[in-house]
């Protein structure tokens, strides 16, 4: 009963946050709405017995990634007018077309996810004992899925090298 209330609250907050990202005029407001959305998703993860990932979602996403976003937004947008959304290249009826496309996409994806035959057995089987606990997650990560986990180190290394490369002072293109 409590989990039902929590689900609807978190779902409403997540949708409001997503709408904020979509509609906010200034990138800072978009970023803060995204933090709201991510926090609500963390609650939903917790409801689905994904304890570790709920914490990771809050710490890494709403924390680290969004701090990076806000840092770049404040670095770039400070003192500038709010960026306009009416470029010279704007399509006619762009909002209408995008909204229509989004609606069609939602219907199709929702139908594909929920309408298929194999979903008929989706009666939320009781989670067995240790499912979703941090111990179970760690066991899966460090035994069966050790290689993919090790490969993320390469991904992060590539990211670090790439950012250092992009962020260097280049003499040739400096203005």
């Amino acid at each position: 009963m409590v989990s039902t209330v929590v689900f609807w609250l978190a779902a409403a907050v997540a949708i409001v946050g997503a709408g904020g990202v979509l509609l906010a005029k200034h990138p800072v407001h978009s970023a803060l709405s995204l933090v709201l959305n991510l926090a609500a998703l963390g609650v939903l993860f917790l409801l689905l017995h994904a304890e570790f990932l709920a914490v990771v979602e809050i710490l890494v996403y709403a924390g680290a990634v969004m701090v990076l976003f806000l840092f770049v937004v404040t670095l770039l947008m400070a003192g500038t007018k709010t960026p306009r959304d009416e470029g010279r290249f704007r399509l006619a009826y762009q909002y209408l077309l995008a909204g229509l496309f989004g609606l069609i996409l939602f219907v199709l994806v929702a139908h594909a996810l929920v309408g298929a035959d194999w979903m008929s057995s989706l009666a939320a089987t009781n989670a067995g004992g240790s499912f979703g606990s941090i111990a179970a997650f760690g066991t899966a990560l460090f035994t069966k899925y050790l290689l993919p986990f090790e490969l993320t180190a390469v991904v992060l290394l590539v990211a670090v090298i790439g950012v250092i490369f992009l962020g260097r002072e280049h003499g040739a293109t400096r203005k």
Partner: protein
Amino acid sequence: MVPLSYYLILSALLFSIGTVGVLVRRNPLQMFMSIELMWNAVNLSFITFARQYTNMAGHVFVFLVITVAAAEVAIGLAIIVVVFRTREHADVDELNAMKG
């Protein structure tokens, strides 16, 4: 206990909102945030299916997705900063040349 299909519908809704955001916004930072929205919508459906089949593989995959998303954000924001450095406006429609 809410039926798990509600989670999937919420996930589809968030994904669609993210898609519309990418289509509508012309500020690269806001397009980026919409893409983050889509990442997380997919994560939610991964975790829902993991819950349905009580299989930890979904959780591990979400963990990997979050790692890749963090790397993507770091590199993407670095590119945006470089682009901003050479131009006054960052309207993606005006970025039509690869050469800075």
